[in-house]
């Protein structure tokens, strides 16, 4: 044949290549590829586990956030209630203080009223006594003007300025 082409040798080369392909596949290609696939699967599994853990962590985080928000709300409510209670207590105390002040004022007014009446009564009694005394003295000194004598007596025994 031209170019020394030989069918027998071509077939021998085929056989050689078939043996080589099979041998390399089983000895090298498949084990290495299996190992690479195994490693890929291993890292994929790790990645999936990491993703799961991340999802769990995110869930926990959202739960914690929700709890925090609930606690915030509760704190807010408590604060409002406490403020309301404090405000109520202050109002009550103020009302009590006002009531007490009113009572004190009323009492003071009553006492003042009583003092005034007592003073008035005393002054009236004193005036009556003075008048009685003056009348007694007038009656004892004949010839003097009653009115001037009375005035002298009331001014501590000094003679009246009008004279």
């Amino acid at each position, binding site marked *: 044949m031209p170019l020394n082409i030989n069918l027998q*040798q071509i077939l021998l*080369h085929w056989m*050689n290549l078939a043996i*080589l392909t099979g041998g*390399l*596949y089983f000895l*090298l290609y498949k*084990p290495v590829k299996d*190992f690479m696939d195994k490693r890929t699967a291993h890292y994929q599994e790790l990645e999936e586990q990491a993703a799961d853990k991340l999802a769990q962590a995110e869930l926990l985080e959202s739960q914690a956030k929700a709890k925090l928000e609930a606690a915030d709300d509760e704190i807010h409510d408590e604060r409002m209630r406490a403020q309301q209670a404090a405000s109520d207590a202050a109002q009550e105390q103020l009302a009590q203080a006002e009531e007490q002040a009113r009572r004190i004022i009323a009492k003071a007014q009553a006492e003042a009223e009583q003092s005034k009446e007592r003073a008035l009564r005393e002054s009236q009694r004193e005036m009556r006594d003075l008048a009685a005394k003056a009348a007694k003295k007038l009656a004892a000194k004949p010839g003097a003007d009653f009115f001037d004598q009375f005035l002298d007596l009331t001014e501590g025994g000094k003679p009246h300025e009008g004279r």
Partner: protein
Amino acid sequence: MKQHKKGLAVCLAAAVLLLIAALMAGSPGPSESVQEAMRDAVLHGTGQISLFGLMTVNPGMISALLVTAFLLLCAALIRVFAIPRFQYQPGKLQLVLEELVGLFDGMAKGNSPHRNRFLGAYLFAAGSYIFVGTLSELLGLQAVTIHGHPITLPAPLSDVNAAIAMGTLSYLVILSGGVASNGLGGVGKTLKEFSLPISMSFRLFGALLSGLLVTELVYYYVALSFVLPVVVGVLFTLLHALIQTYVLTMLTALYYGEVSEPSPKKEKKKKLQAKNA
């Protein structure tokens, strides 16, 4: 630093002395003309080798068997000693092996997303064979022809029979992908590319042969046998080993992906079945 300089000077002096000795010794003259040497390199008419006494084969066949034996031995050693010690954080050897397998596996998956398991294994084997086979010519292994002459074993694919076997086998692999995916339609798709086995075979053969011929030419003349072979023999061989490996594996993966792509009718059927289910 001084020791390095001394070593360099000794090397240079030895090289100059050897060059002078070689030039003074002279050459017995070429035993065959350059035409005969090149025709023999292409056709192997006179350089046949006995295969275990059963038949005579081209030297490329012996190279192919040696390369296969070497690759399988390496693979077995790696399988026994290296792979059981693989770790999730790879070492150097593991990294190289994973890169190689990943390269061909990625090429198979990228070009043939629908069906690629066997393709990846075939590309790995073919790529290793072409690369190591091409580099094997650098070793200059010697064999004895049936006429008792010594001969340097060439790269397996510089033998036209090896190149045709590689091209046609790749074509059969492509055909198998078409049949597995599309049945008879796949056969039709593959047969449309009837020129593929010829182009694949002769592309490989031409590329490898051109390297061989250039090397033959260079070594034919004594004066060209200094310094130049470092570039021609090593760099060019390395370069076209890489290029041919890439070209054949890429072409096989591309055509395999093309013929193994499910036809639109089949996809419609599958969708309908899925809907009904």
